[in-house]
């Protein structure tokens, strides 16, 4: 009987459990969970603040998930060390877990750059976990002046979640635009305008230099008064265990298509990893929940002796604020051509290079976008489809009748 150990209890771990069990119903599975919660939908913490969901509904799987899958969860435990040579995990309490196959699914941690006077701030929070969210919720009042450092996905979802529950929200970022990791200037400007119309204030292109209790002084001299601070500058992959065990690590733990690390029988999945983005042909940390699940599942199948590959990963994001949605996927490699269609309320930018769709940014109109995403994932030559029609809207009609016959007349 094989012994499987998973360090971490997020969505990658859930995928890993399901992957293992699709192949091996016998082996033992032990999950090391730092958080005291069963696997939950991390990106839903902002929807919790918004009261669009609750703690019960945020569970990623049913109550009986672990027992159904014969997995034991060690809640409140962390791993202190991986001894790859003897295939053991040493826990924080000194216990040892022996493994035949191990998955490191340790996720990422908030990155807080050194900022002067941060210790003078009474109410400051990260926004990554249920516990962060409950603590933040406890600290806010309808009069709170909230300052969020970071206008990325986490900071802005936090702003949306807090909207209507606090007095004012100001978001600052060193980048000159919002959502700088996924949107270009024009798309970001459209999103920022919409956020501002909903009462969110921005201080962009500068960062907080000094905190004095309830005042932040920016690099450009501007001052922002606040009483609750949220730090959403960015995240860092949790790579230490694998790095210390001698595995190859860059910004994330390096994994191949099978989610193997450089060490034997040691796999990694989720936000802690760095892996191949086929849209840009580069290795990247793509900390995305869908990819985390797919990596976890891939790792699980391979750990159990199957053969799975996650070989078409791309960055992609579906995110919306106050009713305005945005879909992005892929990348904009140097020298790519852009096709744009836009009006006041929507924008569609498609990026093309070497006869392939490499990426897109859409705001406002989200109908059937997955057809575009599939073109990137499948690296479909655009000369083989009717790209002129696809530019107007995503449709199977542009993909040729052979593809249509395959998809609509048989099982896929």
């Amino acid at each position, binding site marked *: 009987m094989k012994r499987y150990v998973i360090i971490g209890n997020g969505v990658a771990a859930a995928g890993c459990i399901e992957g293992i069990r699709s192949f091996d119903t016998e082996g033992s599975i032990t999950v090391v969970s730092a958080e005291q919660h069963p696997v939950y939908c991390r990106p839903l913490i902002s929807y919790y603040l918004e009261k669009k969901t609750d703690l019960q*509904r945020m569970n990623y799987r049913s109550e009986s998930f672990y027992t159904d899958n014969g997995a034991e969860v060690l809640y409140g435990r962390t791993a202190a060390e991986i001894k790859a040579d003897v295939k053991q995990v040493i826990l924080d309490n000194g216990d040892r877990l022996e493994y035949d196959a191990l998955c490191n699914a340790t996720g990422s941690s908030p990155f807080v750059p050194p900022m002067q006077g941060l210790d003078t701030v009474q109410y400051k929070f990260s926004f990554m976990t249920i516990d962060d969210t409950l603590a933040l919720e406890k600290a806010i009042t309808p009069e709170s002046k909230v300052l969020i450092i970071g206008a990325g996905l986490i900071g802005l979802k936090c702003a949306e979640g807090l909207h209507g529950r606090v007095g004012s929200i100001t978001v600052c970022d060193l980048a000159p635009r919002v959502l700088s990791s996924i949107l270009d200037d024009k798309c970001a400007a459209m999103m920022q305008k919409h956020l501002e119309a909903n009462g969110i204030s921005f201080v962009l292109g500068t960062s907080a230099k000094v905190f004095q209790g309830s005042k932040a002084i920016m690099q450009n001299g501007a001052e922002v008064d606040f009483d609750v601070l949220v730090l959403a500058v960015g995240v860092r992959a949790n790579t230490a265990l694998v790095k210390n065990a001698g595995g190859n690590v860059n910004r994330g733990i390096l994994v191949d298509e099978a989610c193997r690390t450089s060490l034997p029988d040691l796999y990694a999945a989720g936000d802690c990893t760095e892996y191949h983005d086929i849209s840009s042909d580069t290795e990247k940390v793509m900390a995305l929940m869908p990819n985390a699940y797919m990596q976890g599942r891939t790792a699980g199948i391979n750990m159990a002796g199957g053969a799975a590959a996650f070989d078409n990963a791309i960055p992609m994001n579906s995110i919306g604020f106050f009713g305005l949605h945005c879909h992005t*996927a892929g990348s904009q490699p140097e020298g790519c051509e852009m096709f744009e269609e836009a009006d006041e309320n929507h924008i569609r930018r498609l990026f093309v290079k070497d006869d392939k769709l490499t990426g897109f940014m859409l705001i406002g109109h*989200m109908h059937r976008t*997955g*057809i575009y995403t599939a073109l990137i994932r499948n690296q479909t030559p655009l000369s083989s489809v009717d790209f002129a029609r696809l530019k107007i809207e995503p449709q199977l009609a542009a993909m040729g009748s052979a593809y249509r016959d395959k998809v609509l007349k048989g099982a896929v």
Partner: protein
Amino acid sequence: MKRIYVKEEWCLGCHLCEYNCAFANSGMTDMVKALRGKTIYPRIQVEQDENGVTYAVSCRHCKDPLCVKSCIAGALSKKDGVIEIDHDKCVGCLTCVLVCPYGAVVEDGSGVAQKCELCMQNACGTPACVKGCPNGAIVYEERGEAE
């Protein structure tokens, strides 16, 4: 496992399947009251290719469902071969719309996602698009996918 398949040689492009779908999932008993003067959000989409050939596209209930794997709310699942959305869990992030390669998951008009569930969640019995197709261009039959 029965699925919905199209016979494009019989499709008239009349869009009636879209209306039947919207009505079947409206929860109402009178089609006129349910649909008159309203924008409909069907779970099946009629397309037309460059030669004028028309056909309807709905969820393939695929073997490797990217929507289920990608759902950030744990709201999509595959049970007995049918991919379902738990509307109570869906928060309307539309990640499923971003990943479905066939454009078969769509927004429902109120901000959350919806898709064909083979009329198993409503009182229709045989899928409404199949039952109502005037030319037999949409069929509900077994073509051999293992569940």
